[in-house]
């Protein structure tokens, strides 16, 4: 009960702060949005000027006997009010995008999700088996891990140009960046998780006749499965951070492109809408995966009794 309240609170509190900053005129509001230009040439209705600047213009017009400009306190363009973001969130799905190659928000998102999926899937295809092998067989670990330890410090963006040269300008290099960013960490993390498996379980299975591949498949893999699942959830989060890099190389695309486009035209309400959706998507999917994990691994000590 109180846990749920705290959960909700952790989201509601920042929103309340945002509302106060946006709607209470004497909190912050360092600018004035002009409603009437008056005698000032360069002012136009809808423009935002700094409060000091505005005040001095008002004083000047009064002195000259002209109509002083009028306006209301406002926040900078990069901090839209909650209701503006809410409207943007709605129109993002209802109003067709501007520009020639304009993309709907959901199209951009879907493209990003596909990049993440393929990058993470391909990385896991190699990284998980290799990690399990390295964790279970010291020989494999000694052969593989030093190189990976070296390689993982090379920043993934450094491979951007190379990836484009090899894989073209479309989705290939983007997926490659996600793979490069995820794979090496994945091997090390999974190998570590595998090593942490209780040796008694392995020894017990050996006294019962398990050996070789069967030992791996029937004991090691199920033994680490709940922890492996947790690792994969965390690694998936890391893959998201490489998305930004991935989407800026070659032809920019996906949600990163959407956000940079919207920011360029100063549509910050759309930017925030995209951020809210990405956050909801990431948080929501992780929450679902956690629920699924509890279903899949009813014996898991870390979820038992929760």
């Amino acid at each position, binding site marked *: 009960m109180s846990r749920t309240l705290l959960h909700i609170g952790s989201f509601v509190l920042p929103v309340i702060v945002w509302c106060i900053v946006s709607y209470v005129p004497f909190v912050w509001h360092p600018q004035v949005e002009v409603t009437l230009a008056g005698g000032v040439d360069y002012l136009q209705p809808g423009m935002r000027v700094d409060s000091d600047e505005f005040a001095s213009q008002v004083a000047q017009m009064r002195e000259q006997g002209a109509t002083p400009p009028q306006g209301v306190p406002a926040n900078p363009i990069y901090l839209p009010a909650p209701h503006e973001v809410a409207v943007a969130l709605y129109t993002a799905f209802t109003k067709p995008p501007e520009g020639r190659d304009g993309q709907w928000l959901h199209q951009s998102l879907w493209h990003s999700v596909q990049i993440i999926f393929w990058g993470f899937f391909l990385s896991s295809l190699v990284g998980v088996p290799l990690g399990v092998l390295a964790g279970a067989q010291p020989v494999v670990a000694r052969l593989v891990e030093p190189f990976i330890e070296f390689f993982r410090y090379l920043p993934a963006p450094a491979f951007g140009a190379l990836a484009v040269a090899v894989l073209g300008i479309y989705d290939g290099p983007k997926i490659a960046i996600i793979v490069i960013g995820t794979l090496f960490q994945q091997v090390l993390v999974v190998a570590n998780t595998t090593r942490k498996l209780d040796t008694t379980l392995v020894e*017990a*299975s050996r006294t019962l*006749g*398990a050996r070789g591949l069967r030992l791996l498949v*029937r*004991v090691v893999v199920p*033994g680490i499965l709940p922890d492996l699942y947790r690792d994969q959830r965390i690694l998936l989060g890391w893959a998201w951070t490489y998305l930004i890099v991935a989407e800026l190389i070659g032809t920019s695309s996906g949600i990163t492109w959407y956000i940079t486009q919207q920011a360029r035209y100063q549509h910050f309400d759309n930017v925030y809408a995209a951020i809210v959706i990405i956050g909801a998507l990431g948080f929501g999917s992780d929450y679902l995966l956690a629920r699924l994990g509890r279903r899949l691994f009813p*014996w898991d000590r870390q979820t*038992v009794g929760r």
Partner: protein
Amino acid sequence: MSNRQPANLYLQQSEAVRARFERIRQREVILEVRGLGKRYASAQGEVEALRGIDLTVHRREFVCVIGPSGCGKSTLIRILAGLDSHSSGEVLLDGKPVRGPGRDRGMVFQGYSLFPWLTVKRNVMFGLEMSGYARGTAESEALQWLDLVGLGRFAEAYPHQLSGGMRQRVAIARALVNQPRILLMDEPFGALDAQTRAKMQGHLLEIWRNIDVTILFITHDLDEAVYLADRVLVLKAHPGEVQEVIEVPVPRPRSPEQFTGPEFRATRARLEALIHPPAPPVDDDSRVPTMHMIRMTDVSDNVE
């Protein structure tokens, strides 16, 4: 232990007991250990964990191994199980040298070693599945063994839903399902409370009576050793060597009432003397009570 007994009373066996040991010696030898030695290479140089261990175990004999902590009991049983290698000597099971773990030797560990992702039934089936039994056969056999340890009702439960004693019973069933020649047990009841422990000892004797299995049982509980064993192998530490092998003169069938009997007490006293030899009179530890401690409670707040 106030009444004086002859020091070697534990060597006196009644007619029935002597005849029983005679019968045991007639049976075939299951396990033969000759001149077994084990050295570990550690950072501080070589550690000699075991030296020149000789042991012969006959079929359906119950042998307990005791000794001070660190004397190499676990090392010994792990070598027998094939989980560790030995440095010298040989281990023969049914006359054949032991190489690696095998189904002919079952093992029960001190810690919980059940597979947490499998139900109790699937845990017991594990060994059979590894031997290539069909699922159906394995299942019906597993259920029989679960009934034998009195846990038939918990076949579909997961290990984390069982108490400590129940888990060890499942572990015993899981080891026995392969019908091993010898059951190796490394302090299997060490983590249990006294009451559960007593119950488990009764259970184990009952199982041992009813099936054809030889048991090598490690413990540091002297009562447990005397209560369970035909013979007790006493090890001493640094390096681990056989100090004495004691034939327990307590008649079978055993029951908890025998704990106060003369044979039991004599054997226990002998083990006590071997494991905890009378300490030298002047000892650093004797100065402990006069230690100068800083008072960390109120001066008037006395507990004694």
